[in-house]
């Protein structure tokens, strides 16, 4: 028997039992569409996080002083760090939160106190005005660079084009007023949170404002991405010496390390979600097998007639196997379309969520649905093919 003829037979049989075929497909449709959507969501999230981490600068390292002995680095120590050939810049940072007031409403914003180098180390650009200067730091001036979201909260009616007029104006944080010297370029919102809801002030000002003398976090920029490993080693050597080998006192993290860790975590999470969705595919496959078994019993007489007039085992096998595969493939295609549709709809409903549909994943999902048809169709098809014509013909 020719292959095209076998496909034709299978399609005829599927069409002659529409409702049943549809219900059988449904399991596969649900399975494939949820696999597609979940992988899409997972990949999208990973990309968002990756790009926002990359946005902070790929040459970035951070040192956290975590131990109880931890004290801020002295100026001499900072100088030593800056002297390493692998290090381009060092920026200490103090963080906290403050309440910005406007009229009767108040908004919470994060406060970062640092030095001018912070701008290059963290890849922060000023859209309007200037960044804080060494002069600001030395003189403990009450000046700030403001993120866009802070301004949107305080001046909801103001247009972006009018923000220029705000330079030189003051805003109130926790009751004290600060002069705006610059407005930060927007970094966008991701599920990591907004990078635009912050103000940056001189380190010395922040020490007082946040009443925190100890700087516990330092950002270090490596010369280039090739120097990140060297810089990590240099920093480790420096801090091991400083704390007499007590590695619990500090932690050096490179951005690329963070990137691969988070990327790995998210991939694992995505695979786990997809795995759970794949279970429904297996359930769908069992549904196909179940219906095929019923169908074989129902069509025992048909099988007998076909065998009597010359159908070989492989002809019957092929007919039923193709039926199962066609059902699962159609289910797979519908599932793909549904999954793609859902993936496109999710970001519209939930902002901040990104979905990335990769053709590879779709191809694999489709191949998987075909495989489900083969795996779960082979037993019923084999059962059909092994029926003896004489028994099948006398079946009522």
């Amino acid at each position, binding site marked *: *028997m020719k292959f095209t003829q076998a496909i034709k037979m299978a399609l005829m049989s599927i069409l*002659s039992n529409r409702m049943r075929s549809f219900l059988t497909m449904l399991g596969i449709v649900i399975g494939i569409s949820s696999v597609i959507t979940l992988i899409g969501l997972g990949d999208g999230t990973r990309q968002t996080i990756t790009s926002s981490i990359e946005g902070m600068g790929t040459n970035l390292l951070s040192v956290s002083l975590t131990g109880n002995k931890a004290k801020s680095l002295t100026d001499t120590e900072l100088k030593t760090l800056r002297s390493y050939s692998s290090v381009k810049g060092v920026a200490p940072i103090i963080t906290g939160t403050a309440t910005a007031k406007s009229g009767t409403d108040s908004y919470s914003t994060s406060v970062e106190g640092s030095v001018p180098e912070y701008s290059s180390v963290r890849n922060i650009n000023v859209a309007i005005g200037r960044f804080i200067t060494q002069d600001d730091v030395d003189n403990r001036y009450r000046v700030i660079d403001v993120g866009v979201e802070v301004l949107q909260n305080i001046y909801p009616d103001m247009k972006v084009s009018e923000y220029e007029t705000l330079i030189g104006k003051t805003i109130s944080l926790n009751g004290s007023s600060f002069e705006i010297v610059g407005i930060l370029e927007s970094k966008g919102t991701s599920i990591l949170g907004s990078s635009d809801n912050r103000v940056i002030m001189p380190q010395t000002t922040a020490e007082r404002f946040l009443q925190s003398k100890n700087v516990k976090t330092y950002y270090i920029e490596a010369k280039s991405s090739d120097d990140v490993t060297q810089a990590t080693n240099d920093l480790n050597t420096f801090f091991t010496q400083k704390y007499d080998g007590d590695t619990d006192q500090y932690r050096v993290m490179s951005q690329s390390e963070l990137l691969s860790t988070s990327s790995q975590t998210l991939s694992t999470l995505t695979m786990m979600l997809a795995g759970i969705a794949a279970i429904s595919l297996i359930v769908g496959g069992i549904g196909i097998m179940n219906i095929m078994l019923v169908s074989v019993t129902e069509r025992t007489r048909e099988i007998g007639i076909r065998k009597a*007039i010359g159908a*070989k085992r*492989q002809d019957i096998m092929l007919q039923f196997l193709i039926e199962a595969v066609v059902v699962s493939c159609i289910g797979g295609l519908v599932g793909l379309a549904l999954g793609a549709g859902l993936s496109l709809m999710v970001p519209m409903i939930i902002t901040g969520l990104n979905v990335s549909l990769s053709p590879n994943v779709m191809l694999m999902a489709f191949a998987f649905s075909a495989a489900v048809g083969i795996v779960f169709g082979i037993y019923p098809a084999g059962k059909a093919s092994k029926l003896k014509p*004489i028994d099948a013909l006398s079946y009522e």
Partner: protein
Amino acid sequence: MPLIEISHLNKIYELGENKVNALNDINLNVEEHEFVAIIGPSGSGKSTLMNIIGCLDIATSGSYRLNGTEINDYDDNALSAVRNKTIGFIFQKFNLLSKLNALENVELPLVYQGAGSKERRERAIEALKTVGLENRMRHTPAELSGGQQQRVAIARALVTNPPLILADEPTGNLDSNTGSEILTMLKELNARGSTVLLITHDNTVASQAKRIVRIKDGCIDSDEEANP
């Protein structure tokens, strides 16, 4: 060389502990162009014999040569090929596929021969013309009368030009008028050169054949020329 050559053929069914001798030392030769009726009451073993001759079942022991080849050694697939090319079946219950129309039913044996769709169509139409159903080609079995259904089945049996036509109680589900039409058709087929083997329990049906083999309790009781 006889078309059918059966010697010392036995068929034993095992029903639990009991062994039932359905066929007991059968010897039968059928030459080409013969029209033979095998007649016997129900339970006589004639259906078992028909299944073996039709290659739907194989004997427990003995020899069955069809068209010169020994059938008893064949496996499932080889038997299918023999049925497809050498035998045209006509069943009591017509055994048409209910979802296919007359034309598609007649085409089916050619599908399993791997014939192309154009060739299948032409040969199936030809066979349907032979049984006078060229106007009913697009009808499904449910839309045809019993006699018409049996004629479709005859067309299906003819379409591969098999040397042997095996008719198992072909008139059993038909009224006597339609039944005799079908028998006339079988006679015509025989006159045109086909070997026809007719299995029945009905003496009047059997009397249409040229040779009558009576079977009783799994043995051949008598084998004689029919009285014209």
